[in-house]
């Protein structure tokens, strides 16, 4: 079975902090994704990567950056966290058909 692991289930950070969300997959998938999920808005794509060191902006990249130095790891970075980035963050990986998700990280910015 595909396993996608996010480093934290819950995080509380202060406004202005730099925040790293880590995601690791164990199935050698080329594609990895970061989404945020908010009530009434569903899942929105922040960034995705289709290869090591490659990244593409999704629908809402503002305020975020990503890093993919190794195939199995895709990191989401909040350069300066703000309260409107309080959300559920979901990482996913894919070979091209369907996506497999991690357990999610509930981030609260205070």
């Amino acid at each position, binding site marked *: 079975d595909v396993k996608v692991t996010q480093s934290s289930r819950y995080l509380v950070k202060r406004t202005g902090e730099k925040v790293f969300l880590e995601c690791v997959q164990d199935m050698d998938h*080329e594609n990895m*994704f970061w989404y945020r999920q908010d009530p009434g808005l*569903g*899942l929105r*794509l922040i960034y995705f990567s289709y290869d090591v060191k490659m990244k593409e902006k999704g629908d809402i990249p503002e305020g975020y950056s990503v890093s993919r130095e190794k195939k199995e790891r895709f990191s989401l970075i909040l350069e300066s966290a703000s309260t409107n980035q309080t959300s559920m963050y*979901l990482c996913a990986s*894919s070979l091209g*058909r369907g*996506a497999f*998700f991690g357990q999610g990280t509930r981030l609260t910015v205070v």
Partner: protein
Amino acid sequence: SQELEQSPQSLIVQEGKNLTINCTSSKTLYGLYWYKQKYGEGLIFLMMLQKGGEEKSHEKITAKLDEKKQQSSLHITASQPSHAGIYLCGADRHTGNQFYFGTGTSLTVIP
């Protein structure tokens, strides 16, 4: 961009009842996925449908993709409290290896 409309947005049923959740697209679907999400957790992959008329079942959950490949339904037979959660449909985008998702259907099963 392609949008997926799910209905209903929320559903409350008594244990043992059958229910159906729909996912409708304005464009032809080339890959349709159903996920279940327990509250506060990640998405669990349930089923993938690709061919028009295709139907798949897993335990008491059956998903169908209509012939025109623009609508999918998820049917739960004899619902149980363990079925409670948010059900989301997702579809392949035509360009790039990305996916669209519906906004989800929240299911509550009352014992």
